[in-house]
């Protein structure tokens, strides 16, 4: 029997949840400290001392100058000597780690581990310690403090510091990425989070409205969209208010992408920018193609009640937004009918930031220069949410009636990719096909992480995780 509770009034203790799991900070600077834990006592001391600096989901009166968050790989939890019954209760995909899931994720060919950065190849990354900051100076200061704790406790050593930062244009931070698209619109709203549901960001109701998803789609210890608690480690107290995170360093072949846009844009009757919009489902300024198929519209972009507020039900053939466009693959909304219900258990919460130097359009750029996106996504089930989206909707096209075609932008094409852009008899909006596609994005590493609650971190630090 399901206990009768009113899930509409789900209340969550935001001060027990890491802030990173609840909100996108939108800070321009970040550094991800990838650490290896040493002996267990030092590692526990390191965590115990770091906890006091962590940023929770507390409601901000004003934004802090920097934030700190932490998450662990499975080998990290082994190193911390969590009890065997607890370790074995973690979902198998987390125990295996992202590298071992390569065949499932199509992380093969150019995306396979032999092309990854060495730090990700041998399961040495135990901890992801993330600092986000408003200024470069605050970033340095906070990182120095944390590394000093690592040093003093002897609990952790720095393997690599991955910097990321917003792309600055005219001295101001933007949400653009290296291919020139404005990124980071919206994330799924879930019950218990602080803000009201923004139109387009939760799930569709039967009368065409939007409401927040079940808390258990994004946080462990709460009922999910099926009405059950997500698979989670024991004891409950260790899992509750925690979540799982995937981290992927995605290198962008900027020169190759721009060359494709130039070459195909010259052939496409709607022109280069319209072609770019068809690839992603947003114009490069962020205007949703579904809402404005013929031109960008800054008024929509600026309006949070409109810039994610659309459905595909009246465009099942992709004549406005192509069926295989990047944002339609990642979140097909009501593309499969049933009022969008088929996607409600396949949602991921994205956190990401660009890294490397931005080269403005028209200036010489090389693929091999260091530029890309640190993609992070949070969900209650890596298997059911992230892995499903990656395997079925990004790297395959059957659900979308696109055969073997992959996502044009991030698909692992290996030189044989193809994308069909549906069109109409309108000469400005014809069908168009791109074939023999190479990889525009290449994976450089990453892993699966468990992001515990503050309570759980204290238990880990004290060595009091008790699975009985």
């Amino acid at each position, binding site marked *: 029997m399901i206990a009768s509770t009113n899930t509409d009034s789900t209340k969550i203790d935001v001060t027990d949840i890491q802030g990173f799991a609840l909100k996108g900070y939108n800070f321009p600077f970040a550094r991800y400290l990838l650490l290896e834990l040493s002996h267990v006592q030092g590692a526990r001391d390191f965590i115990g001392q770091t906890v006091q600096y962590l940023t929770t989901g507390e409601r901000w009166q004003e934004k802090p100058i920097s934030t700190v968050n932490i998450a662990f790989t499975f080998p990290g939890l082994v190193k911390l000597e969590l009890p065997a019954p607890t370790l074995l209760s973690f979902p198998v995909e987390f125990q295996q780690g992202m590298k071992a899931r390569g065949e499932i994720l199509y992380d093969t060919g150019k995306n396979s581990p032999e092309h990854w950065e060495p730090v990700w190849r041998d399961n040495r990354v135990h901890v992801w310690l993330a600092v986000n900051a408003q200024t470069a100076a605050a970033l340095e200061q906070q990182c120095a403090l944390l590394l000093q704790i690592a040093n003093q406790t002897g609990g952790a050593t720095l393997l690599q510091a991955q910097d990321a930062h917003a792309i600055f244009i005219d001295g101001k931070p933007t949400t653009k990425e290296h291919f020139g698209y404005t990124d980071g619109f919206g994330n799924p709203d879930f019950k218990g989070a602080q803000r009201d549901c923004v139109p387009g960001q939760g799930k569709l109701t039967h009368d065409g409205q939007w409401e927040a998803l079940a808390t258990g789609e994004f946080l462990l210890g709460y009922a999910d969209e099926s009405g059950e608690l997500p698979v989670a480690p024991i004891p409950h107290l260790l899992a509750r208010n925690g979540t799982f995170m995937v981290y992927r360093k995605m290198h962008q072949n900027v020169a190759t992408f721009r060359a494709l846009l130039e070459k195909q844009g*010259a*052939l*496409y009757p709607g022109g280069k920018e319209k072609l770019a919009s068809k690839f992603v489902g947003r114009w490069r300024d962020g205007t949703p193609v579904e809402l404005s198929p013929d031109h960008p519209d800054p008024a929509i972009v600026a309006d949070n009640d409109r810039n994610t507020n659309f459905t595909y039900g009246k465009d099942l053939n992709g004549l406005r937004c192509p069926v295989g466009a990047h944002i339609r693959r990642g979140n097909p909304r009501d593309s499969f009918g049933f009022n969008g219900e088929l996607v409600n258990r396949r949602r991921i919460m994205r956190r990401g930031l660009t890294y490397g130097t931005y080269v403005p359009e028209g200036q010489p750029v090389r693929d091999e220069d260091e530029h890309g996106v640190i993609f992070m996504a949070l969900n209650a089930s890596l298997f059911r949410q992230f892995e499903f989206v990656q395997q079925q909707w990004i790297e395959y096209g059957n659900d979308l009636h696109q055969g073997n075609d992959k996502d044009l932008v991030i698909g692992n094409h290996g030189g*044989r990719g*193809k994308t069909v852009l549906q069109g109409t008899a309108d000469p400005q909006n014809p069908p*168009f*096909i791109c*074939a023999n596609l190479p990889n525009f994005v290449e994976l450089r590493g990453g892993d699966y992480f468990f992001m515990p609650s503050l309570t759980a971190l204290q238990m880990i630090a004290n060595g009091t995780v008790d699975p009985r």
Partner: protein
Amino acid sequence: MANQNGQIYGLTILSPILEGDTLDVGHATALRWYLASLPRNHTSPFARVSSTHFARLVVMDDVVFVGAPAIEEHVKSRYLVFESNFDGDLDTYLTRMAQEIPDFVDSVWKHCVGYPGVADPAAFAAYMKKCQIETTFFFADVNNKTVQQNLRALQVQSALSHFIERNQGKPAADIQKSFGMLVEHLAKAAAPLPGGIDSEKTAAEDRPYDR
């Protein structure tokens, strides 16, 4: 006709597996080992019986409820379940199996009760039909086309998308000329082999209309 949907036939056969406790390895186990070793790609025996859409062979044991209290439901025998979706009528299909993949059929059904061999295809067909049960519901592919029609359609689709990619944006007269060559090329192209379109091979094929 519950076994048919359009021209697609959904076959279900339950063949009782031989028993014998004097054997070193029982028939059901030996059969499982053999089935597990079979290829599932274009070299599968069923690729040779070219009217096959899907086929599946599985050894069925007793049904056990794993819970408290555990319940074992005993069937009269262990069965080989053979399911196949194919084009056309049943007698033709079973005869083709006997004639075109006799060694394979022998290797499988020699473990089953009453198997008469394949020397007489009519006897084999009669034996198989004796073990047939009504399918009632099956995955009837996505259309009512034959295997060959589907493969041909995929071949045309693949060639056409490459054609469009290479020719979109060119002057109409050039496209028309190339299109004529494409049509001619496709008309002469060999039928694709059962087991699927190999996209790499298709891409490497000689395509004069793309030059």
